[in-house]
């Protein structure tokens, strides 16, 4: 994947591009994405992948004028337009799924194929979603992975956890990325999507890890009930980072849209 920049109304946007085939836009979750993301590499074997970074993620400029859900949604449309794309396959994971669903709801005529991988955006009283903002780093793997031990190893690979300079950089990255994510996820990751999902007319695939502990699979049923004709692909032995734990199965599910 190659890291590039495209100008948009709010800020210059960094995006990863690679592969060939039908154009596909991937919107990452609150943890962000990188050029080494195994899921993007696998997607790029079948699609022409564009993965824009939300402002503040990675080395991209922050977007102080992007404040609320509508701003995020319209900004993401600005990015699609700036990339010169028309009706790309739209894929989003977690927070990115929330944004993708909003994009499809606000402009149903512009999205014909949508894949939502354990998206955020709904809130069920009986199944509150854990607060990722007060979760300590060492508690994250258990929340995000089916296999927490392997997940922890994947998350911390190559990191100098006892180096103060690394820790300061980590705090800065966290503040930039999760600070931005907090605008639509804090303190409750719900901004009224349930009232708009009826507008989605895209062919929609929902992908969910069976052992997702952050946004449990009961949410898959809720999304399925609100998007007409949505198909659910449940993936066993996978947590919230299903696209890392079961990369092939995820990409296979998305290929149903091709």
């Amino acid at each position, binding site marked *: 994947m190659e890291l590039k920049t495209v100008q948009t109304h709010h800020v210059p946007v960094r995006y990863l591009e690679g592969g060939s085939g039908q154009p596909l836009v991937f919107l990452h979750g609150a943890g962000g994405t990188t050029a080494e993301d195994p899921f993007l590499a696998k997607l790029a074997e079948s699609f022409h992948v564009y993965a824009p970074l939300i402002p503040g993620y990675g080395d991209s400029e922050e977007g102080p004028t992007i404040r609320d859900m509508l701003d995020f949604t319209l900004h993401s449309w600005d990015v699609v337009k700036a990339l010169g794309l028309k009706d790309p396959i739209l894929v989003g994971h977690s927070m990115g799924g929330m944004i993708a669903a909003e994009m499809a709801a606000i402009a149903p005529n512009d999205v014909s194929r949508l894949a939502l991988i354990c998206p955020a955006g709904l809130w069920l009283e009986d199944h509150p979603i854990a607060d990722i*903002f007060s*979760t300590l780093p060492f508690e994250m793997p258990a929340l995000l992975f089916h296999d927490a031990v392997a997940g922890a190893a994947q998350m911390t690979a190559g990191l100098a956890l006892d180096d103060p300079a690394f820790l300061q950089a980590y705090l800065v990255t966290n*503040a*930039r990325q999760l600070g931005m994510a907090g605008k639509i996820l*804090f*303190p409750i990751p719900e901004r009224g999507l349930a009232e708009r999902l009826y507008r989605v007319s895209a062919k929609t695939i929902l992908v969910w890890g069976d052992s997702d502990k952050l946004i449990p699979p009961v949410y898959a049923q809720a999304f399925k009930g609100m998007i007409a004709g949505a198909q659910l692909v449940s993936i066993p032995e996978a947590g919230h980072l299903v696209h890392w734990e079961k990369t092939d199965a995820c990409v296979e599910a998305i290929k149903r849209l091709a």
Partner: protein
Amino acid sequence: MKFTWFNLMPWPYLPDDFREKNRSVWVDIDQKLFDPEKSHEVYNTYMDLLEYAGGLGFDGIGVNEHHQNGYGIMPSPNIIAAGLARRTKDVGLVVLGNSIALYNPPVRVAEEFAMLDCISGGRLVAGFPVGTSMDTNYCYGQIPALTREKYLEAHELIMRAWHEREPFAFNGRYNKLRHVNIWPRPIQQPNPPIHIPGGGSVETYDFCIDNTYSYSYLSFTGYIRAKALMQGYWDRVADRNAPDTSPYRAGFAQTICVAETDDEAERLYAEHIDYFYNRCLHVYPGFADAPGYRTIKTIQTGALSQYAPPTGGFGQLSWKDLTEQGHVIAGSPETVRQRLEELIKGLHVGNIFCLMHVGNMPADKCMYSTKLFAEKVMPKLRNMFPEYADDDRFWCKPMAKRVTAGSLLSESQAALVAGE
């Protein structure tokens, strides 16, 4: 020097195993640990102590705002200050302060502070904290990355509400008001003096300097650790070409316990200090600093949240550690005087917020410590900065002629006068 006697109002009945059995004293503290009937006595004793200090020559008595917090049972400092306004006469009422981003609309703060100023005859010292991440983000649900923007808008609205003499429309991002026209408005003109409590945010330094507000560092870790942070503030004062370096541009909170001798101080107060530092400051680290709450600039200065406990936690600190490292200034009047002088000179601060009720300290010990401080320490530190003795920009200016609360005529006198 301005000395303010401060009470955080800790809940004094946290159990011995609080630390082991609870993850946090703040935000998600166990509801069952609060006993409303016991709180009746706690609140009234705490207010009595504030009033007691108010009669001993302190310049101010201080209260602050916390939510869902076992060491600060004062979600509304204005309610406490209203009680104090009636029962005290000359002392400044330091409300440090109202977290203005949390009030909807923030004209509520302009109104309530105006009421306090009017009831007290101009004795209000107003504080506008951005608020801790625990209070602002985790308890009151404000979005961390937008908190500062909302705070600045609230500040602008409150100042306009205090200063303008005609109704005005306010079209903010977070507040849309067609008719802003507060009634009453404060006695002190153009507005009560303003102190901004902060924890090392560079933006807050600039905000204080540019508006001539006093910057208060409310820390529990004492003056030795505060040195670098306060130096950062004074460097900034110089960088921004402030017209002076008056020590009243800054304040500092310090835990202080006084006894006849150093040994007596340890004997009387060690258990209460231990209670405060071991139980009351047991804050879950996940609540200390919501991502986006502090700006990148501030994080890059290396300032960690003061609620991030020192390595190993506070629990391992003994009385000796806490006093020697300056978290706590305790001992005989002479010991306390020496160390406070070191603090005042070292940090160059004119406002001292004396944390003299500590943890589960009973009223008798608190009165003893307070009286010794007022009589044997405070007078000797009064004139630390003679060259700034006339700087009244950061303190309240009460009306010369004030009424005495509770001085109605007797019923029989009233009947006579009314019958005339």
